[in-house]
């Protein structure tokens, strides 16, 4: 009788020590892992945000190729010209993120990576992209310059 009580108290003491050891090992692991995980997660991008004016070079490219890709608030945006109208969409294909291009002859925005096609409203015409391209606001200024901004809906 006495012996079992003694062994009981012994196992519970051992059990308690095991628990303490396990918890501190876990705590140690977390304290090592957390800084590494935080270290690996990149900082938010910094840079100019808000409406973007096309530079003279970019406007010239637009005139020449009927499209140009410019950074707007850290995102790639494709600006296209079709019958004197200017459109702007996210240049990141909604499928796997390749940069799209514009086929002026067919009035189609095309992603060469997996052959996704979008119309002049950014909607998917054919291919694997699951979502339309995000639309941006493209405005011609009275002085002929072009301003691209995120569309507020």
């Amino acid at each position: 009788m006495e012996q079992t009580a003694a062994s009981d108290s012994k196992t519970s003491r051992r059990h308690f020590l095991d628990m303490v050891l396990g918890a501190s090992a876990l705590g140690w692991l977390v304290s090592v892992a957390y800084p590494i995980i935080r270290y690996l997660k990149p900082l938010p991008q910094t840079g100019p945000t808000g409406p973007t004016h096309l530079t003279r070079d970019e406007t010239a490219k637009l005139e020449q190729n009927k499209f140009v890709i410019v950074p707007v608030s850290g995102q790639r945006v494709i600006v296209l010209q079709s019958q004197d109208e200017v459109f702007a969409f996210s240049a990141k294909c909604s499928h796997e993120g390749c940069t799209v291009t514009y086929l002026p002859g067919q009035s189609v925005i095309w992603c060469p990576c997996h052959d996704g096609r979008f119309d002049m409203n950014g909607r998917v015409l054919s291919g694997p992209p699951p979502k339309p391209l995000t639309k941006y606001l493209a405005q011609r200024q009275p002085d002929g310059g072009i301003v691209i901004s995120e569309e507020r809906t």
Partner: protein
Amino acid sequence: MPIGTHWMGWYYLGGITMFFFVVQVITGVLLLMYFQPGEATAYESIRFLTTKVPFGWLIRSMHSWSAHLMIISLTLHMFSTMMLKAYRPPREMTWVSGYLLFLLTLGFGFSGYLLPWNKLAYFATTVGTNIVASVPILGHWLLQVLRGGQDVTINTLYRFFAAHVVILPLAFVGLIGLHLLLIQRQGMAPPVGATAAPRGMKFFPSFALRDLLLWLGGLMLLLTLTVFLPYGPGIPGMDWELGEKANPMAPAYPGIKPEWYFLWEYQLLKEFPPHLFGLEGPQMCLLMIGLLFGIWAIIPWLDRRAYRNQYSQTFSDFGWAAILFLIFLTLAGWDIGSSGATSELASTHNVARVCALWTLAAGVAITIVRYFLYEHRWFVLTGAALLHVALHGLAGLSYLVAGTISLAAAAFIGATMRLLRSRSSGNQT
């Protein structure tokens, strides 16, 4: 080293893979002495290396060729191990460690591809990393950690550089140690069903010297290819011309392709529709690829006959079906048969038809060899793989619909055959 009536050639594929890895380490360290990661230096340092540094082109070309040869020999090694059932107990862990080494090798290929910071590398990495965004819950976080930001930037190159030259090599060397230790301890696998202790060959010096001879052969092959085709054979996905520098503000260009060993995944991504069963196409595709890789990893535990040292025809057939599946997707990823088409749609149909015909031809040839030479009598899964490409390429069904029909047919026939067999064996007893 068991010697027997079986052909010994398969036993050397692991050794030659190891040789190409040693070449990778040596040429890699040499490349490291000139490579400068950085926005304004990565591309420029590689250009300097190949155009100005004496024999710089040689070292870079050897590194590229050896990478491709390593992947070829490793793939052959893996499939021969699979077909000869060398994963039978007690060698399950050898299979798993080899499988992990295979994944690491793909990781080497993928991370090394970005380092020259050229246009092709930029888009290949954009697509390749974007696939992890389809992982549920963790996807976005993983993508950021992998890329070092929202998009592929020079920060991505820094991370890939660290992975390519430190993290992956350390993991690789550790796993190779385990793989070789297991092989040294357990010896190489004897043929299935061998009951008597096979006649043996000593690893040292008999096998090691033979291996050394093959290594010399491998070096000769590597040097010949390097000298005569320093920028690769010029096949899309196997060519390392430096090209233009990466420019995030440039659009992707037509004919863009990943490396040949990623072509099947690339083609599979194209075959998935935008939405399927409430998930997005890329998510379903990732799920399917994950499932296939998962099944491949646990083959030693799935093949119940292997435990009894019996030959499983089903698993041999599964291996061949996997090869036919890869052949079709790789050929289609290469746009075989697209020339001469008048429109985009006609070209897609042409590619599917021509690639299906090639795959069927390969399937028939493989089946004849298996039937007469190896006396295989179980062809349900290869049959399904061939039905799949025939329905897709010749009858014009979509890739996924054709695949579902073929899988259902295979499951039905397999179940019926099993039922008939159990009945007939029941009658006998």
